[in-house]
């Protein structure tokens, strides 16, 4: 059962990655090409649908399948880049606090407390409003806000590892501080960080969708899934599939990432619950 969950999660994430990487080759139509004579064509399983547009068209007659595929690229890009950024920030803080302890640790804990107090969605919306919406603005904003999980877990894991014999052995062998941190501690807490990376990736993707839905995320005409839901919202009473399709895509991707994360946690024996 657990193994099945891990495989399913990995398969979903791999599929999304393939969509993201090969999006230009896989899109059947130009995702930006408008065709006002074919607005809101229903998907193929509904009456009026056809194989010309498998998932129908949106309010500007743009092919929904093509936009959905390009949307996967945006979601994956957001997920991966924010995790890299927040991972670097959080891991650096956490390892420093956990390794040096004492006053350094107190400062790190204080920074984490401050970050936790900040209402993420409000600050993200304000930042995007002030800087101007754009894909990389969203990546930077989310990445700079979502590092606290990395910091908390990296700190706890570093403290635990620091007391072990092989660290003492590295010291005895005359390794420098940098060498001990980079060569001994980091590799031994990496599996914890990997699990956190999946959790944060899922959260980042959901946050981007929420920001775009609220109108201060990825700007149109880019087909972010959150933006597609926002654009379809006014027509959802008549054409529910315009919000159902991107919403289900979002749900499946995030579910897949979480399944992968849970599976990795069991497999690698990482403990991330505080």
């Amino acid at each position, binding site marked *: 059962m657990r193994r099945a969950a891990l495989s399913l999660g990995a398969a979903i994430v791999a599929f999304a990655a393939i969509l993201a990487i090969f999006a230009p080759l896989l899109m059947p139509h130009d995702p930006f090409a408008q065709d006002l004579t074919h607005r809101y064509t229903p998907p193929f399983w509904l009456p009026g649908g056809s194989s010309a547009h498998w998932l129908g068209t949106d309010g500007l007659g743009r092919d929904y399948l093509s936009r959905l595929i390009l949307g996967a690229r945006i979601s994956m890009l957001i997920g991966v880049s924010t995790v890299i950024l927040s991972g670097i920030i959080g891991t650096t803080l956490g390892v420093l606090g956990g390794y040096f302890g004492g006053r350094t640790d107190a400062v790190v804990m204080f920074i984490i407390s401050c970050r936790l107090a900040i209402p993420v969605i409000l600050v993200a919306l304000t930042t995007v409003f002030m800087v101007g919406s754009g894909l990389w603005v969203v990546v930077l904003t989310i990445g700079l806000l979502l590092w606290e999980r990395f910091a908390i877990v990296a700190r706890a894991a570093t403290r635990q590892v620091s007391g072990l014999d092989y660290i003492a052995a590295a010291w005895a062998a005359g390794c420098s501080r940098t060498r001990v941190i980079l060569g001994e501690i980091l590799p031994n807490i990496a599996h914890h960080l990997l699990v956190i990376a999946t959790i944060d990736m899922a959260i980042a993707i959901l946050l981007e*969708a929420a920001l775009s839905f609220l109108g201060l995320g990825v700007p149109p005409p880019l087909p972010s899934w959150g933006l597609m839901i926002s654009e379809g919202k006014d027509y959802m009473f008549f054409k529910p599939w315009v919000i159902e399709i991107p919403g289900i895509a979002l749900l499946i991707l995030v579910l897949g990432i979480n399944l992968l994360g849970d599976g990795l946690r069991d497999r690698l024996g990482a403990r991330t619950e505080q």
Partner: protein
Amino acid sequence: MIRFIVRSLLLAMLVCLTVLIVSFALTRLSGNLAINLAGPDASAASIAKIQHELGLDRPLPVQFAAWADRALHGDFGNSYLYHQSVSSLIASHLKVTLQLGAIAIGMAIIIAVPLGILAALHEGTWIDTACGLVALIGQAVPSFWLGLMLILWFGIDLRWLPIAGLATWKGYILPSFVLSFVAIPVMLRLTRGGMVDALRADYVRTARAKGLSRASIVLKHAFRNAAMPVVAVSAVQLGFILGGSVVTEVVFNVRGVGYLAWESIGKGDFPVVQAVVLLFAVTFVGLTFLADLIGAMLDPRVRG
């Protein structure tokens, strides 16, 4: 215990002060406020006049001290948009948000705790797996999309509940339910984990050996111990639910603080945004402090 309380309280106040400084800095970095206020066509003289009136020509630390002093007395200035004091604006929007938040945390407890107990009692069976699945899906579903889908199902298809607004008590159901989704997965997992540990503990074995009924063992002995972390976490989750109110209130067109903040951000009404950010931050810090306090009261080991 007193030392622990004083230390946590000091830390909480220090965090609040930092958030105060950061939120002040954010609005000052956002460009020239006077130009925003005077409009794009204003002359240099009128901009200078507004700058002088607002004290924007004074050194930053002086500006901050004056602003923080007023903020601590509940005066956040006036909204650019509503021409009304920010504090009265927030006060008039706060009631709905708090009501929804309270109902949501109640719903989360009612849904998550029994499911968590159920999963723990049937550890390793399909019931456990099903409860795990609920938590997983709860974590993966985008809340704004869930809100829209519930509006479609219960408001349009079934016509059971209103699609927007809080005119009747029925209007509270969907927004609170969507808000509660923030907390359900965490609370479910925590209850299950606590119950699994508690059911394996010696005191439960003793209770069983004494011949106590199953219900009495589960509810009186095991759950009382498993409930402690859940209570502490509920306080923190209430903070997250407040943060989630932005999205939910926009989806359901509820005029609460979250909606107010979203509207104000989109129109550059920064005094309001700043005040809401501070309100949420201080509430979160307060709730975390409360959670720590509960934790310390229930478990002496934490106080160290």
